């Protein structure tokens, strides 16, 4: 199956990790956004907020290994008219400080930008304790939060800008490894809540975000050989979901696959199914981490073992397209 390479080893050129793109964008945007302050929890060299911190030391606070305090401090900064950007590993910032995110940020609608790095299993060797695989579900559950999962360097950069310009709570999910470049330099369409159609097709739609978008494109190429023309949507915003793009895709292609580097419950797949169930149900298949923790291992080996590959998307696409009523 040429083109449908597995894991991060796409034939596409590798770009920066999305955490790196976020870190560089934040550093650059700091100049034009004096209202932006950043709070770190002793992981700035992992999340890349240290680049902002080195350039604007007066607007950077490292409160130590204390995520719930970190979120509360950010809420206070936001209440005093700062745009508070906070970052830690996705697992720690969302899980360790969830009540603070709920009560101090979401409930009063604070202008806090929560960045979770090291999302997914593609972090590799550190293992399950460091892998944020439930973060999208948790953050989507909080009323008022915008949830963004960029797929590559360019979209992470654009997402960072959009996040700072948006007023209100946002969750931005970033990853650790370098990922294939999907958008040409300087030409990244990015609007919160608006999916990017990366490829058109009439038989099937593959909805993906994060590292799964590159695999979705590989899968779409492979499906051509089976007579299936797949549309690919980069659904970088999980909340608010692009209902129009989903409904027209359902109407025009009649079958769907949703691929994400996240647990089954409450992620992009759940949101897509919920949206279409009400308006235009079509056969849907899901490619995700099901209901299990992963383990230590090399990123590509893990993606293969836990079923996050272009080959799995191809299989799911075949099944969804085959289930259409003719």
């Amino acid at each position, binding site marked *: 199956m040429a083109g449908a390479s597995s894991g991060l080893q796409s034939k596409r050129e590798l770009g920066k990790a999305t955490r790196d793109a976020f870190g560089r964008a934040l550093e650059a945007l700091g100049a034009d956004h004096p209202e932006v302050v950043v709070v*770190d929890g*002793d*992981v*700035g*060299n*992992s999340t890349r907020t*240290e680049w902002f911190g080195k350039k604007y030391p007066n607007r950077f606070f*490292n*409160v*130590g*290994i*204390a*995520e*719930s*305090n970190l979120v509360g401090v950010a809420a206070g900064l936001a209440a005093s008219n700062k745009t508070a950007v906070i970052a830690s590993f996705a*697992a*720690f910032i969302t*899980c*360790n400080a969830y009540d603070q995110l709920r009560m101090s940020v979401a409930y009063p609608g604070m202008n806090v930008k929560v960045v979770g790095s090291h999302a997914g299993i593609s972090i*590799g*060797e*550190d*293992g*399950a*304790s*460091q892998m944020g695989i439930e973060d999208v579900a948790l953050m989507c559950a909080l009323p008022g939060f915008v949830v963004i999962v960029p797929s590559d360097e360019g979209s992470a950069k654009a997402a960072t800008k959009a996040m700072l310009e948006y007023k209100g709570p946002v969750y931005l999910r970033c990853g650790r490894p370098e990922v294939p470049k999907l958008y040409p330099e300087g030409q990244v369409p990015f609007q919160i809540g608006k999916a990017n159609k990366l490829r058109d097709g009439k038989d099937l739609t593959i909805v993906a975000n994060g590292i799964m978008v590159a695999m979705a494109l590989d899968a779409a190429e492979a499906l051509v050989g089976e007579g299936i023309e797949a549309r690919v949507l980069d659904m970088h915003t999980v909340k608010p979901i692009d209902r129009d793009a989903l409904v027209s895709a359902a109407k025009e292609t009649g079958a769907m696959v949703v691929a994400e580097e996240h647990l089954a419950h409450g992620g992009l797949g759940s949101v897509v199914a919920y949206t279409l169930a009400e308006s235009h149900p079509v056969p849907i298949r899901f490619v995700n981490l099901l209901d299990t923790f992963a*383990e*230590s*291992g*090399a990123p590509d*080996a*893990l993606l293969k*073992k836990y079923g996050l590959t272009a080959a799995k998307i191809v299989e799911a696409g075949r099944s969804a397209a085959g289930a259409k009523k003719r």
Partner: protein
Amino acid sequence: MANNLDALLARARSIREDIVKMTTEAGSGHPSSSMSAAEVVTALYFGGFLKHDPRSPQWPDRDRFILSKGHAAPVLYAALAQSGYFPHDEIMTLRKIDSPVEGHPNMKRLPGVEASTGSLGQGLSIGVGHALAARVDGKSYHTYVMTGDGEIEEGQIWEAAASAAKYQLDNLTLIVDRNHFQQTGPAEEVLNMDPIDGKFTAFGWKTQVINGNDLREVLQALDRANAVKGMPTCIVSLTHKGQGMLNLLRRLGDTNFHGKPLPAQNLNEALAEIAAS
């Protein structure tokens, strides 16, 4: 005692050797965070403090050791393997797919691991739970917990500290591996928690401050902790991050060396430094 001390010093060296070998082979991990704790872990597992049975990891009367700073897993794996919980050569599968010797301890997959850790701040509460269970069951086992000095910045540590004092848990001993560094820099600069012993004293704990890289002092401190009645003990264990390969780390220009494996070309140099220590 002198002979025993020599044997234990040799054991600490061999634990350090395992740490650098397995992390260099893995190509990732936290050797420096593991090395600082080698004397304490050696004393617990081989100095007669932990009553345990590698053939029966779930023996209800065993003493517990919870590595709350889970990223220092290699020091625990070395001790468990050398105790016979699993074949020694399995440490070389550290961080590889399908191996139970994971990047952070996973109690569901590896015998001898008492708690799944890696998200900092949680181990002391779990230790309080074990200590309370001992009381409920009328058992005399002792629970030991090790945290990092950065780790005690987590609020949960202090919630646990207050609850341990409330229940006068003299069957609970916390060792704070005070190696003066955390991920992004010196612990005193990132968030100064000094005086650590003073804080625990104020929370109702018995405290000791020792040189945690001096085996004799560690053994004495653990003995004293066992004799305390009516309150939990906190041992502030003053150590060096990367103890045993400090010359090498200095030469490499990074005495924190957080979360980095030794490059393969430096492995022999590290082993030589450990052997001479």
